[in-house]
């Protein structure tokens, strides 16, 4: 039983990593990973929404008629997303300003709806929590890594700390959407090589 929970948790971290393996939730992945901080903040916000909505949905799954399950899930997800939006604006105004409209867009992140449909609606609460934590952390580390690479190459800094000196001419393309596609593609390739050898 404990082993199953650990497997549910580890699943999202690597084997079925939402970004590198399932390739879902691409909208925030490509849009907000231009800095490390933005990637991390978006990851944590998504983790929170994923965890809370998986808990609620796996708890009340039997009460929701299957015909309206998708609108019900979206309503529940939207409630938590709005909560995160207000919360960030109230307590982390600088992060809220840099993520701006991508916070409300977590509602339509297909990672969240996908996990409700694929996991929370079929499994008990404790397994859903393990799944949400694994998927959420898997999403978070992937976004943070992507953000770090793009910020490093595009601005010469990581977490806003200037690492490369003035001699470094920033690759502006890396902070633009095209840079997200390029770094994501290369990272997915590297992950494939690692898993094949492992």
């Amino acid at each position, binding site marked *: 039983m404990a082993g199953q929970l650990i497997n549910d948790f580890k699943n999202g971290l690597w084997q079925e990593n939402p970004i590198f393996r399932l390739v879902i939730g691409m909208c925030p992945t490509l849009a907000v990973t231009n800095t490390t901080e933005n990637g991390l903040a978006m990851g944590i916000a998504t983790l929170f929404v994923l965890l809370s909505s998986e808990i609620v949905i796996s708890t009340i799954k039997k009460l929701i008629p299957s015909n309206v399950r998708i609108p019900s899930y979206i309503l529940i997800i939207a409630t938590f997303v709005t909560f995160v939006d207000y919360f960030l604006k109230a307590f982390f*105004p600088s992060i809220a300003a840099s993520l701006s409209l991508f916070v409300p867009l977590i509602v339509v992140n297909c990672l969240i709806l996908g996990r409700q449909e694929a996991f929370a609606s079929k499994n008990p609460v404790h397994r859903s929590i393990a799944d949400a934590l694994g998927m959420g952390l898997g999403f978070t580390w992937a976004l943070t890594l992507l953000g770090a690479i793009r910020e490093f190459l595009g601005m010469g800094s990581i977490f806003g700390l200037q690492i490369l000196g003035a001699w470094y001419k920033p690759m502006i393309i890396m902070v633009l959407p095209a840079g997200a596609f390029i770094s994501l593609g290369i990272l997915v390739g590297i992950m494939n090589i690692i898993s094949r050898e492992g």
Partner: protein
Amino acid sequence: MNNKTSGLIITLTVIGIVSAILLAFVYQWTTPYIEKHQAKAQEAAVFTVLPEAERYQEVTKDGMTFFEGYDSANSRVGVAMVVTGGGFQGNIELMVGVDLSKQQINTISILNHQETPGLGARITEKAYRNNFANKPFGEYQVVKREPTDPMQVEAISGATISSEKVTIIVENAIQKIQQAYGGGA
């Protein structure tokens, strides 16, 4: 069929009501903090663009709101106003502070924007904002190299449009201030 349909309606209605109630509480809880941040940001911006001011007061003229800054001797050192205009993506909201007696800009402060992070978003950085420091009133020209003329504004590399939009918004603000204050001190 009838039973089933009503079941669907009831489910969605209940979920909708519950989430609306929860969000009403969240809204009540967070709104004072959000307003405090906004007020603080605005206050900080006024003192940034009117560095000589000790205190300021809001004045409404011609239906527009201005912030008049006063020094310790109670004489008016400058006027600031918030203006909004289109940027490269979305609107840019910024505050311009001017010295009416010298007919020049003190400096500007960006309050809100949706420009591209790492490019257009650099309009918030000092290096770009300093373009407007102590600039005489008038029309500005955006250039892509080191400015040679006081009326020139150096564009951020890779974000010429954002740089130009900010310049237009600033020009617009100066016009409004000059209109309201008759161009003179």
